[in-house]
C-alpha cells in the first residue's frame, strides 16, 4: 500500500484547486508578468489532471519565488539560486511526484548558474520555469544576467559592460532535452508549452518572459511577439540540435533588437531521463525510495551483515 495516496489519483481536477482557499494578498505589482506564469501553471496542471498534493513546486528567491504563496500544492520556497538541487533530489527520492522548479533570471542564470548547468546536463525529469524580466525586481531594479549590454542601474551607473547571458543556448549546450521560450502576455501559448514541458520525460527548461512594469519599463510588455512555430519565416527542426542552436542564437540576439521570438526551440524525445539512466546502471531502486519507509514488510539491511570484510 502506498504511503502517498494523492499520487496518481487520476481524477478530474479543476484549475481552481490550485488557488489557495484563502489567497494571500499578492506582493506582485499590477501588470506584473508573474501573474501570467501563475495562471498558465494552474491551467496546465488542471489540464493534465494533476492533484495539487502530488505536485511539489520548488522556488528560489525573488518576486518569482513568491509563486508558491499563490499556487496551492506542496511547496518549498528555498534560498537564492538553490531551487534546482532541492527539487531534483525530491524527484530522485520520490519519482512519482510532479516536480516543478521556478525562479528568476538572477536566481537561475546568475547565482544558481552552476546548478542550472548540471541539472540540465543530468536531464532530471522535471520542469524548470525561469521568470525572465531582465532585471532584479525585488531588490529594486539592479542589472541582472539577462539585462542588455549598456543597461543602466544603480549598481551599473555607467551602463553594463557585459553582454547578457544566452539562456536558451546555455540550456541546450548543458543538456536540457526540452527548451522553450514563452511570454506572460501570451497565456494560451504559455499553457500549451507548460503542458508539454510537464509531460516531457526529462529536463524541460522554459525561459518565461515576464514583464516588470515597475523596474524594467524599457522591456515594454514583450509585444508584439512572434510564435516561431506559427510563422513561416522561421523554418527549423526542433529535433535537430544544430538547427535549434542557430535559431536560439538568433532569438536571443533579436530580443535586444525589439523582436520577441517565442515557441519551442528544442525537443529531444528519445533521451532517457536521469532516473532511467540511473536505474539502468543499478544505482536507483525500481520502487520510489520514499515508499520504503511506509512499507511494513520492507527488509532493512543492517551493517552487522556487512562485517565480513573487516574480519
Amino acid at each position, binding site marked *: 500500500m502506498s504511503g502517498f495516496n494523492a499520487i496518481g489519483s487520476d481524477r478530474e481536477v479543476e484549475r481552481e484547486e490550485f488557488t489557495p482557499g484563502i489567497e494571500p494578498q499578492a506582493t506582485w505589482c499590477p501588470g506584473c508578468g508573474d501573474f501570467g506564469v501563475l495562471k498558465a501553471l494552474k491551467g496546465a496542471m488542471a489540464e493534465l489532471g494533476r492533484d495539487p498534493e502530488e505536485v511539489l513546486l520548488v522556488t528560489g*528567491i525573488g518576486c518569482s519565488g513568491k509563486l508558491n504563496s499563490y499556487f496551492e500544492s506542496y511547496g518549498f520556497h528555498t534560498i537564492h539560486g538553490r531551487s534546482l538541487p532541492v527539487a531534483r533530489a525530491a524527484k530522485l527520492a520520490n519519482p512519482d511526484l510532479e516536480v516543478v522548479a521556478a525562479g528568476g533570471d538572477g536566481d537561475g542564470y546568475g547565482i544558481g548558474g552552476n546548478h542550472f548547468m548540471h541539472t540540465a546536463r543530468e536531464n532530471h525529469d522535471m520542469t524548470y520555469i525561469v521568470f525572465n524580466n531582465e532585471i532584479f525586481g525585488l531588490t529594486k531594479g539592479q542589472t541582472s544576467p539577462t539585462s542588455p549590454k549598456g543597461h543602466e542601474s544603480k549598481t551599473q551607473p555607467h551602463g553594463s559592460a557585459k553582454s547578457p547571458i544566452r539562456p536558451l543556448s546555455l540550456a541546450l549546450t548543458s543538456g536540457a532535452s526540452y527548451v522553450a521560450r514563452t511570454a506572460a502576455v501570451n497565456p494560451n501559448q504559455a499553457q500549451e508549452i507548460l503542458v508539454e514541458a510537464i509531460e516531457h520525460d526529462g529536463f524541460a527548461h522554459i525561459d518565461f518572459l515576464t514583464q516588470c512594469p515597475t523596474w524594467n519599463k524599457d522591456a515594454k510588455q514583450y509585444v508584439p511577439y512572434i510564435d516561431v512555430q506559427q510563422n513561416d519565416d522561421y523554418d527549423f527542426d526542433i529535433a535537430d540540435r544544430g538547427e535549434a542552436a542557430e535559431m536560439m542564437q538568433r532569438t536571443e540576439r533579436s530580443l535586444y533588437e525589439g523582436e520577441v521570438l517565442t515557441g519551442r526551440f528544442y525537443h529531444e524525445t528519445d533521451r532517457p531521463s536521469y532516473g532511467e539512466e540511473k536505474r539502468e546502471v543499478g544505482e536507483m531502486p525500481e520502487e520510489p525510495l520514499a515508499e520504503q519507509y511506509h512499507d511494513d514488510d520492507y527488509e532493512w539491511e543492517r551493517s552487522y551483515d556487512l562485517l565480513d570484510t573487516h574480519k
Partner: protein
Amino acid sequence: MSEELVWRIAGGSGDGIDSTSQNFAKALMRSGLHVFTHRHYPSRIRGGHTYVEVRASTEPVRSRGDGHNFLLALGDSFARNPQEEAYYGTEEIKPLAENLDDLREGGVIVYDEGLIDVEEIPDFDERVEENDWHVYPLDLREMARDMGREVMRNTAGVGATGALLEYDLGHIEDLMADAMSGEVLETNLEILEAAYQQVDDLEFTHDLRAPEGSHEGEQVLVSGSNAIAYGALDEGCRFIAGYPMTPWTEVFTLMSQHLPEIGGISEQVEDEIAAAALAIGASHAGVKAMSGSSGGGFALMSEPLGLAEMTETPVVLVEAMRAGPSTGMPTKPEQGDLEHVLYTSQGDSNRVVFAPGNAAEAYEQTRTAFELAYDYQLPAIVLYDQKLSGELRTVDESVFDREPTPDLGSTLSEAEIAEAAHHASGKFRRFKRDPDDDGGVSPRSIPGQQGGRFLATGNEHTPEGHISEDTDNRVAQLERRLRKMDAIRDELDGRESTHQTLHEPVEGADYGILTFGSQQGTVEEAVDRLAADGHAVKSLGVSALMPFPEAEVTAFLESVDEALVVEMNGSAQFRGLIQKELGRFGPKLHSLLKYNGNPFEPGEVVEGFETIIDGDEPAPTTRFVPAAGD
C-alpha cells in the same frame, strides 16, 4: 605497560603502504591482538613519503603510541630527484631518514638497501649506536625482482618482518589469498616465504617479538569512516549527496559503494552547496538523507544548513576536519573547525553537533545524530577529523549487532494528517506555534500525502508556512525552534548512557583533562600513565558539543582543582566553548594545543600535563610547536 609492537612501514606514496599495513594489521588482529593504526600521508597521488603505524598489543589499544619500535623502510620508488638537493630535499632516503626521530631505543630497522644508501643519512651509524638500534639491511627490491616484480618488495618486507618477530605467516597468507589469485598470488607467496627464510637464517641481535594474545569476543577492524557509514545505514539512511574532498571522501565513497546494493541512492554533484541542498530535498520528500564534507566544502554548506534549520528539515551532515584555514594542509588532522561547525550560517544556531572519540562512538553517535535530526526536525552534524577517519582499530563485533531503525521520526501518516489541525484555507499546519509536544516539535507531512500540503520556506512563516513578518508569530516560532535544543539536552541527560566518556583510573582525582572528539583515546592513555606515576588525574572526553552537556562538564570541573584542555587547534576553541557555555571555571582551565599537522601522542599529553599543572609556574597555554617527536 603491556607488551606491544609498534610497526611502522614507510615508503613512497603510491608504493602500496596502505594495503600492506591493513593486511598486516588484520593478520595481527586474527592472531588475537588488539590493533590500532595511525596513517600519515601527503596530499599527492604518487610521490612524497608516507607511513602507517600498526600498534598491536595484548591489551586494548586506543591511541597511537609514542613512536615505534620496528621500522620497515621500503625506499621511495617514486622519488623524483634522488641525486640532487632539491627544494624538498633528497627524497629517496626519506622513508628511512625521516622515521628515525620517532624510533624508540632498542628498536629494529629493516631497510631496503637496494634503494636506500645510509651513507646519505647524516650520522646514521652514530645514531644507531647511540640508540641501540638493531639494523637489518636487506635488498628487498632485488628479492622481489628475482622472483616476480619489483613492486612486490612490500611482500618481501612483510616476510622479513615475520621472521624478525617470529610471527607465523599463516594469517598473512590467508589474507593474500582473499585479495589476489592466480600467478600474482603465487608469486607473492613465494616472495613472502623466500624473504622469511633468508632473514630467518640471520643472527638476530634484538629481543622484540610479536606479542601473543587472545580476544574474548570476535573483533572487527574498522575505521571511523566505516563506523559513520554503518551508523547511517543502520538508521535507514538511503540517500547521500556529496562532492569529493579529503578526508570526507572516505565516508562518501563507502556510502556510494553500499547504497546502490541495498536500494539507496548516492549522488556526486557539482558542489557542496548542491550536495547539502540535495540532502535537504530528499529528506523533505521523505527519505533519510545525509551529506558532508571537510572544512572548505562545509563552508559552502552554511547556506543550506540555515535553510534546514528554518524549514525544520531533518538532515545529517558530517564534517571531517583537516588543518585550515583555506586549503590548509589537506591530509593533516586538526580540530580547528569547531566554531565554524557550531555557528556557521546566519541567525541563531539551531543544530545538534557530536564529535565522537573513537570508532565505536562514531557508529553510536551517527545513529543518535539521525535519531535526533528526524525526531526534532533539525540538522545534526557529526564532527570528526582525518585522524579518526583513517585510523583502523579493533572493535568488538557485538558493537554492530543492532537492529536497524529506519523510522522517519516526527512524521504523520495520512490517517493522522486527516485528524490533525488544518488552516481554514485547507493547508496543513505543519509549523504549529504551540505543538502538543512540549519539545517544540510540530510533526510534518510528506509531499504526496493526502491532506498534508504546506509551504516550507526559508522566510519566517506562519503555522501553515506562509511568509510572515508579524512580530508575535516571529517570537513564537523562533522560541519554539530554540526550545527544541533544551528538549534535546533534557532527553540526552535523561538517558542511561552518556555520550561523554569519563576515564578515572584512580579515585578522587584533583586534576582533570578535558578533550573533545578524536583525541579522547590519546588522553586516556596519558591519564593511565600519569596515574601509574602517582598523579591523581582523570579525563573527560566530550562528544556532545551542541547542545552542550552542561551538567556533566560542570560536575567534572567542580570535582577538580585544575584542568587541562587538550585540543588540536591554535586558538583553544574548545576551551572557549566550555567558558561560553558554563560562564565560569576560567581560572581553572589551562590549554594544551597542537597544530603542526599531527595528532597528539600520549607522551606529549603527559609532558604537557607535567609542564602545565605540575610545573613550578603553571602556564595558561602550552603549544607543541614543533611538537616533541614530530
